[in-house]
């Protein structure tokens, strides 16, 4: 029988489980990352000096090779989902943080002045002017982060966190191209799907006046 069909009938449950684990891992890490990075970015937008330091640190974290990072966390957090999510969470921070910070800082000064002129206090300014204007850029940061994390979550399988990396690694060990593909294709599709969906969302939250056709 066709080896692909054989694999699918034999292992479809494994593929589904691995895909679910992968989604859980990626979505969880990015969601946590956003929960931290967006408020932090907002807070930093009025504190340029601290911002420079924080962005620098986040940028440095980004450059650390992922296997090395997993290696650092292993002695402290062991193997499994927890260390994987910690590392992926840290990796997801920079794109979201930088985009939130830049997005808010680039809101045109005239608009802020107009808001103040209307009597807005800081909070109103944030929620009614700055955030709506910055939202597309923040969404872009989320998109970049998600695609990046979905890709690197495959490595998490190597430290026992599960996910589609398990199928890929398994396939590498027994030299089975179909098993490798059973892990690769869903992962690539997930990344493309996330990129596409978040891209649409990005366009949807662009205030109508700013949309370019």
């Amino acid at each position, binding site marked *: 029988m066709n080896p692909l069909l054989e694999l699918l009938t034999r292992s479809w449950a494994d593929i589904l489980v691995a895909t679910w684990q992968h989604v859980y891992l990626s979505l969880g890490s990015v969601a946590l990352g956003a929960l931290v990075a967006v408020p932090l970015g907002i807070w930093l937008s009025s504190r340029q000096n601290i911002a420079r330091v924080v962005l620098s640190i986040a*940028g*440095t974290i980004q*450059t*650390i*090779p*992922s*296997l*090395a*990072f*997993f*290696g*650092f966390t*292993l*002695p402290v957090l062991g193997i499994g989902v927890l260390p994987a999510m910690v590392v992926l969470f840290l990796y997801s921070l920079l794109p979201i943080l930088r985009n939130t910070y830049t997005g808010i800082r680039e809101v045109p000064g005239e608009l802020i002045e107009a808001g103040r002129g209307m009597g807005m206090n800081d909070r109103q300014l944030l929620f009614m002017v700055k955030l709506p204007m910055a939202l597309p850029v923040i969404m872009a940061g989320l998109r970049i982060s998600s*695609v990046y994390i*979905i*890709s*690197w*979550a*495959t*490595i998490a*399988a*190597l*430290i026992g966190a599960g996910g*589609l*990396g398990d199928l*890929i*690694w398994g*396939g*590498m060990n027994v*030299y089975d*191209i179909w098993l*490798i593909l059973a*892990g*690769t294709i869903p*992962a*690539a599709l997930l*990344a*493309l799907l996330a*990129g596409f969906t978040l891209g649409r969302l990005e366009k949807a939250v662009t205030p109508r006046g700013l949309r370019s056709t």
Partner: protein
Amino acid sequence: MGQILQLTLEHLWLSTAGVLVAGLVGVPLGILLVRARALAGPVMSLVDVLQTIPSLAMLALVMFFLGLGNNSLIAALFVYALLPILRNTYTGLAGVSPDLLEAGKGMGMTGWQLLRQVQLPIALPIILAGFRVAMVTAIGIATIGTLIGAGGLGEPIWRGIQLANTLMIMTGAVPAALLAIITDVLLGGLEKALVPRGLRAKNI
């Protein structure tokens, strides 16, 4: 200690090789695409799709078709280094102000001269930024090269993970992290240094 140094150099060599090949393809291709803008969209999309393939998967596929070892790793590194270099070359060149191009043409510059004396100098920092991103990415992916029999600092990390030997992990992880960070800082400095004097921002 000497072994760590050797592995570090090997790691650096593997990453650089991948990035250089990507540069040899990406920069000319970027220049070409600026001339033939219609092709830019499809080509970028194709390279973009290749980027979404998780690196472990790419290594697995390369291993399947090219076998184990350093050459396969370099092939995979090439694929991932291509997009940043290609995109930055294209964007950098395309972003040169049309007024400057007109001024050049008015001075009688040929297409070649325009490229060499106007477009490339202005685009250089951006192109270099592409190389920087490519290098850091390559150093990162090269750490998992050990899984397909390539050398580099991934080997002590991976073996350390399997043997639960923290010291062994660190002898690979620390140099790898330092290598990536230092490369990022050095190339970043080069980037700033190569901005044509007239374009330098005074204070940030």
